[in-house]
């Protein structure tokens, strides 16, 4: 089973502080989504792409696959905005007695929104592909999010995998006995699987609580976090980078 997660555990940016990577992705994402020019988001896209594929060494094919869905969505939005938003005529297409008129302000809007979208997605992909979940939880803790929220996310993160594995095992067991051979049977098998999975999850949650209690669980999950600080130089570099992006926004024409 290929989870995105496998890449976070083995990429060339593993040595870099997880906190730094999270800050880098999130701050850039913010700057990108508030940009007033399409140049900054496109720049962000290129930089993030370079960081993810070239620096971190994520296989380009895999990255392209992940990008495909948002890019397709972006293309559709671009066309829609170009032709159906705005007032100022730009150019027209005549096709089979139909006239489609693109608008100038629609074009600008399309450029900015699609740019922002691509930039933001590339930020999130950078985070998802290079930063282990444990590091992200540490950042969330540092941000003083409620313990319940963090504890729950940690447990969900761990048990999603356990549950998926369990579900796959059940599915194989069903398929082995021709569980999904026709439509009606598929529905029946799927409903059995879902019900069974629920009961088993309940059961294993119970057992896990017993196991946690036996190690002195007191209602809050205490675990060791990575306390190493972000190197000053990296922090300065990050601040400089974000400043450049913001000032580009101010200098470049809207």
């Amino acid at each position, binding site marked *: 089973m290929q989870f995105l997660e496998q890449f976070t555990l083995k990429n060339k940016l593993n040595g870099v502080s997880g906190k730094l990577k999270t800050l880098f992705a999130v701050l850039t994402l913010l700057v990108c989504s508030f940009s007033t020019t399409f140049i900054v988001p496109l720049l962000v896209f290129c930089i993030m792409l370079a960081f993810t594929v070239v620096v971190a060494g994520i296989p380009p094919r895999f990255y392209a696959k992940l990008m495909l869905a948002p890019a397709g969505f972006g293309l559709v939005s671009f066309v829609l905005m170009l032709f159906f938003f705005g007032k100022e005529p730009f150019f027209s297409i005549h096709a089979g007695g139909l006239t489609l008129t693109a608008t100038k302000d629609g074009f600008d809007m399309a450029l900015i929104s699609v740019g922002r979208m691509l930039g933001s997605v590339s930020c999130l992909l950078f985070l998802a592909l290079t930063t282990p979940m444990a590091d992200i939880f540490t950042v969330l803790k540092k941000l003083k999010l409620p313990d319940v929220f963090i504890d729950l996310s940690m447990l969900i993160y761990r*048990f999603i995998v356990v549950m998926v594995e369990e579900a796959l095992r059940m599915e194989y067991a069903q398929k082995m006995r021709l569980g999904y051979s026709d439509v009606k049977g598929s529905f029946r098998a799927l409903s059995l699987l879902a019900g069974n999975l629920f009961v088993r999850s309940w059961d294993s949650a119970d*057992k896990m609580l*017993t196991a946690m209690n036996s*190690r002195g669980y007191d209602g809050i999950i*205490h675990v*060791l976090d990575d306390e190493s600080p972000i190197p000053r130089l990296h922090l300065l570099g990050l601040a400089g980078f974000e400043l450049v992006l913001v000032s580009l926004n101010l200098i470049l024409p809207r």
Partner: protein
Amino acid sequence: MHALETVDVDFRYPNGTHALQGVNIKIKTGSKIAILGPNGAGKSTLLYLFNATFKPTSGTVFLNGDSMHYDSSSLRSIRQKVGIVFQNSDEQLFAPTVKQDVSFGPLNLRLSVEEVEKRVSKSLNMVGISGFENLPPHNLSTGEKKKVAIAGVLAMEPEIMIFDEPLSGLDPRGQAELTELLDQLNADEKTIIVTTHRMDFAAEWADEIWILKNGQVIKKGEPNEIFSDMSLIHGANLQVPMPIQTHNELYLRGFANKQVPLSVLELVESVIEFSGEDEYNNYYALAKDDFAPHDECFIGFENGALVAFPEDFKNCFARFRCTEQVREGKQIPIDLSNIPEGKVWIVRTPSSLEGGAEIMLVTVVRGLIDSKKPHRIGAMGTVAKSIVKNTGLNYDFGGEVVNSAVSASRRGLSTMIFATGKMADLAAKRIAYLNQRMGEEICFQMVDEEL
């Protein structure tokens, strides 16, 4: 002194199942205990009572002579002293990374971060996990997950460690490693309690066995006592271990003495002692070289045929001295009364490795092996194993090390055992015990080199 004791303990689940009925158990401090019984006998329930996860419906559980209380501060101290490793590691490991999971217990004991860091790396070292600290548990194999689960309990430094079905789901090598880890923990003066369905393991490993059935103790005793009672064993849906089964057959047909063997080694000794060593039928091996009288000769199987080489080789299982001139390609008679003495050396290694110490050790270990020239190398415990590996050698015996070494010595091959910390004493004790049981003297020697 008893580490744990239950007096007239009854336990009923909320759904009415009467899981334990008037259970009286005493567990000696520092012993190795196996609890056997059919499915549904109440074994797991009993374990939960030992750790105060469940409170008995009636009766009392004593920990180190004091009756258990169930308020939150008592619970914390009980759970620090009595750790449970669950059967399914996936239900025990919950944190995003291995290191975080192991740190959970000690942090709940309100220890300082430095202390917790120290304990985490110490316990991970002890179970032989390194390089996985920052991985999520689902990236590990079943055996590795089990080890992490053990490290998580170990980091709380309990006096008593309880394992529910520790061997289930592990491959043979994993089982051997785990058995050894249990011995290592016991050598560090921890009381170890396991439940298991593996009879051969229970027979060989445990000091004392308790058998539960339908929520009651039906028998307790030492392994040889327990397993010589056939009707009891079958009545409890259990099975007699292979060596004992084989021994019974041989004994009833007049080919073995009466002593109950707990391992293959003891079984073989029992048969040999009975039949006498002169009774060996002479047999022959194919000489792969020229041999003169008094030459050393190593025999073993190659492609199904018994062959003799003048030097040790991979499949060699015995060494003896030639009595006559034999040319290459001829049959060489094997005279088993002419087996030279196989020695056993026990070398104590440190119980933990500080950085850098390993490089120095490698030279010492190499020197030892070069001077004593053992035919086989054994390694007990994670540190000893890693030292031997770092020397660039492979150990021949990694599980059941002492039995294998004693067996080899009876076949003329000498073994050097590297044992981690207190496991060296354990190995020496074990050899002395086997000597006494077999009525034979295996020459063994503690090597007191400063390692």
